[in-house]
């Protein structure tokens, strides 16, 4: 359980750093963070996947929600019409967060599986 939360916190922290240093990193930098967390903290691949998924899912939900609030939902509403997600800002936030979460989860699980061999 501690390892689960440690992974969650580490992935979240690295993901947040990737967000802060967006100018210097590609959009998928958070996945590298998740991979590193997977390497660093020994646990089951499934647990690593869910911890990292949850970390990035929550982080991205928070970040996009915050941006969306400041923007009064203007762009998310338009993009959610084009993509198409029925014009729902929340749907767009959830899809964004889920894509980030899955990517992070896979990266963390890969890291965990590699760990024993390293």
């Amino acid at each position: 359980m501690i390892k689960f939360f440690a992974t969650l916190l580490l992935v979240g922290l690295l993901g947040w750093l990737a967000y802060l240093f967006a100018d210097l990193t590609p959009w998928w930098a958070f996945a590298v963070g998740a991979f590193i967390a997977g390497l660093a903290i020994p646990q089951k691949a499934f647990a690593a996947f869910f911890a990292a998924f949850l970390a990035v899912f929550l982080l991205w939900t928070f970040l996009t929600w915050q941006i969306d609030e400041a923007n009064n939902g203007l762009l998310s509403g338009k993009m959610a019409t084009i993509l198409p997600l029925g014009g729902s800002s929340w749907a767009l936030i959830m899809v964004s967060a889920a894509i980030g979460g899955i990517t992070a989860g896979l990266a963390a699980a890969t890291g965990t599986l590699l760990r024993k061999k390293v």
Partner: protein
Amino acid sequence: MRFLAAGILGIITIALIYALDTKLGPLPPAGALLSPSHGLWKNAEPADKDFSLDLKSAKLKDEVSVYLDERLVPHIFAQNDHDAYFAQGYLHARFRLWQMEFQTHAASGRLCEIIGEKSGDVSVLEKRDRYFRRLGMVYAAERSVENMKKYPQQLEAIDAYTAGVNLYISQMNPADFPIEYKMLDYAPEPWTPLKTALFLKYMSYDLSHDFDDFEYTNLKNHLGMDLFEKVFPIMADSLDPISPRGTVYQTSLSAAIAPASVDSLYLNRGGDTTIDGFAFKVEKRSTDIGSNNWVVGGAKTASGRPILCNDPHLSLNLPSLWFETQIHTPEYNTYGVGFPGAPAIIIGFNDSIAWGVTNAMRDVMDFYEVRFKDSTMNEYLYNGAWVKTEWRTEIIRIKNKADYVDKIPMTIWGPVMYDATYASDLKDNKAYAVRWTAHDAGLEMNAFMQLNRADNYNDYLQAIRNFQCPGQNFVFASKSNEIAWWQQASFPAKWRRQGDFVMPGWDSSYAWQTQIPNDDNIHMVNPERGFVSSANQLPADTTYPFYLGGEHDLYRGIIINRYLRQMSGITPADMQKMQTDNYNVMAETARPLLLKYIQRGRLDVKGKELLVKFESWDLRADIHSAGQTIFTEWYKELGKMVWLDDITRADSLPVGFPQAATLLEALLKDTAFVFLDDKHTSDKETIEDMITLSFEQTVRNLDGKQLGWAAFKATGVRHLLGGSLAAFSRLQLPIGGGSNIINAATGNWGPSWRVIVHMTDETEAYGIYPGGQNGNPGSKYYDQFVDKWTNGEYNKLWIIKNEAEAGGKAKWKIHFKPTA
């Protein structure tokens, strides 16, 4: 085992990231687009965004302060022109980068790089990229840039502007790219003077492309010249020309003389149809492109000072074509709208004068059939001898495909636009070269730069004479109570009907003989009647010695002049009311005729109901007007019924469609008009039959439909990428007006910038455009003015006198400093 699992999972992870980073067909790269750090979320501008900024550049000569007001209009305070244009370039890029680049990509035939060879079923390569390249857009822009080098002032301006754009681009990270780049998955490239030239050529194209030569030729050969004259008459009887009837034209150049062979070879009166058969669907300029401008002199205004009004009708798009700006230097203080992509103010005013433009609609693009010796196209016939072709190579890069190399034969006329290699629509295997004044290296930018600093009538006149293409009606007003209008461009001196049809390219006597001297261009200065106006109608009647060509508007000019003649004691509020006026003078002309000849006894109940609505209509195209909807549909049906049976060719070669006014003008003087009879029936149809039949068709068309005019015509301001981006567009706007009406808001076209300038000591000005200053769809400033524009309201323009005033009221400040 674990290692294998890790390997597989690792590959899946990387594959997923790669997939999310890649544009899959029409789908944008999903991961990159949805990422909070790099994707669309970065374009979601906070509603309380602070636009203040401090910037440095080695390219600046002095400090520049830009004050942004609450509508995001920049007020540039610079110490010299160079720095002012630098700041303008920066601001255009900051707020409108994507559109500037996209439009210049389109103009230079580079859309395949972004979109790929095809978009749906449409070949981007054939319809867009090869089209613009073979029309000579890049060739023309290159010649303009070359010519600019001879004018140091212009060269410095364009270099400064370019440096300003590039300062912004160089400071961007991919996360900062406008959202359209992210959706289409490409990146901005450095700006160049050529791109500005391309943008200006694109405007020339938009306002002066005229491929009617092909359709007219097909129709003339089908009907014969005498009937053709009835379908496309040179002048309408009701015409109220820009320069009033009765004007005596004393030109220094005498009228152009047509070649001796013109009757037999060109007009085919002798039955020789040497040039015939173009199975080519031409790119038709919208008939709704147009504009109004007028100036009332001090004698007609309440203040005793002139008022200048202008509303150019262009394609209504988001981001808007226009960007509002004030430029203040120690030498001048100018305010108005400019084009993102080019320096200077295009329509505006300064502390002494104001100017405005409408399109002249004259034909400055002609086609010549070229006879090559053989299929190598290395030699072509010219005055009985073989002349060597010069070749121009255009390399078109295509996304995910090999380059396409287009070799364009260059002739004495210009580029050969159509030949066997570019025959997607052309099935006759002939070759046609294009002669277009936009190829002649104009100095259009210079005209505007000089207008920005003009102090009086002479400065204005000198400024506009730099302007070569497209033909424009430049109206003028000054604080010293002068008003004027000049139709300005480099116009070829044509003989009657020259260039209406495709001309024989092997005979030099069909060439444009000479340019009309600037002094001979049609104009008015301080006229007796106290006003000047233009609305795309013919500038003069046929007593002007040169042939004008082109398709011209008729009714807007009539109603504008009627109002202006009647009015006195005019205020800016009166002008606002007039600019947004929905009165339909064409319907006023047509209704008595329609009502006189309709056979009421033949109508059913629904028909009678609709006719009552039409009869009681107040002739205004207001939002809820049913009468305007009925009239529009009825007149359209009548036109189809009268014309189509006669003009349609058995071989279905395109013949175009007559202008709306032609039929009405014809019926007003001849109720037995030769085209009335429907050839497909054995009966002889009369005017009563055609009017009644077309009304019955109208009743069927409108059955069950909402008759409210605004809903019926569906005016919208569409994103430049068009239909699929409805969410970035503003559709179904509740606005009245339409074709032939001063408030010329049609489905896709309309008043793109309404401006009113009152030349009082302290300039009083109002303006509005259907867009917003920020091109970012994620900004609240994106479509900020659309609702006000729709309602016919205006923004009062804040003309800042000095920096002390600016400092107090402006919301944000962008400060530029030269690097020491």
